């Protein structure tokens, strides 16, 4: 028999021997043996919320009942419209760039 034909025959036989093995509860056994799923996301949200609340309270108390907000609002109202618009546009650009960068980094990590 030709060498190549013999090799083809051998490879074909080997592949034919690779029969599908029925799951028969194997997946369920594996899943049962896994450690419990992490609850990191809910904890993370709680921690962030708690820290934000605490920081808000400290800031309110340390700033004479939030008086600085009233002062800042007066100053903002006295500013030229063009300047306020420029600041708003700059803030939008910075936030968009940060979000795009975070999304890109996450995508690379996952892939």
């Amino acid at each position, binding site marked *: *028999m030709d060498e190549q034909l013999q090799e083809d025959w*051998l490879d074909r036989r080997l592949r034919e*021997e690779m029969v*599908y093995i029925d799951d028969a509860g194997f997946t369920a056994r594996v899943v049962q043996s896994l450690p419990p799923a992490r609850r990191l996301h809910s904890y993370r949200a709680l921690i962030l919320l708690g820290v934000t609340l605490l920081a808000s309270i400290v800031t309110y108390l340390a700033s004479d009942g939030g008086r600085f907000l009233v002062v800042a609002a007066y100053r903002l109202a006295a500013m030229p419209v063009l300047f306020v618009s420029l600041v708003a546009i700059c803030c939008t650009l910075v936030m968009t760039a940060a979000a795009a960068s975070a999304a890109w980094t996450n995508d690379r990590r996952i892939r």
Partner: protein
Amino acid sequence: MPLNDADLVARVLVDDDHHAFAELVRNHQSAVRGLLRQLTRSDLALADDLAQETFLRAYKNIRSFRGEAKFSTWLYRIAYNCFREEARKRKELVGIDESQLEAEQDPQTVDPALRHDLMQALQLLPLHERSAILLCCQNGLSHDEAARVLEIPLGTVKTNVLRGREKLKKTLAAWSTT
């Protein structure tokens, strides 16, 4: 639409999603268990224990899967490592078993019934050749992928496949002409 391996891995990574991991197990259990059955010479209970250990390790170390190779290749590597550790424990580590080698060199000493059974013939091969043949010829891995799984040089894989194939052809010569 069914999710591919990359999507399922992403779900496990981001949400620690057990359902996604179960889907990965379902997709690959047959190939992994099949490979381990061949490596353990059809010891079904041991092969299934090792397969379970393989998937458990895969779950625990899924962050180390960088997606450079196929998920199945990464799983085969874990499975092969599990098998090697078990073999070490049982003192049956890789190496040419003398009695097997003798049987190999003299085909007349092989039980004629074995010639009609490819799986039996495979089991006569030394482990390093059997592993290479199983991965490349049966599971369809490239030589490069098999080298990664077995953690040996590419040239060694090619040599092992070639030698294993030659021995199989010799052992099964009579059968292949029918």
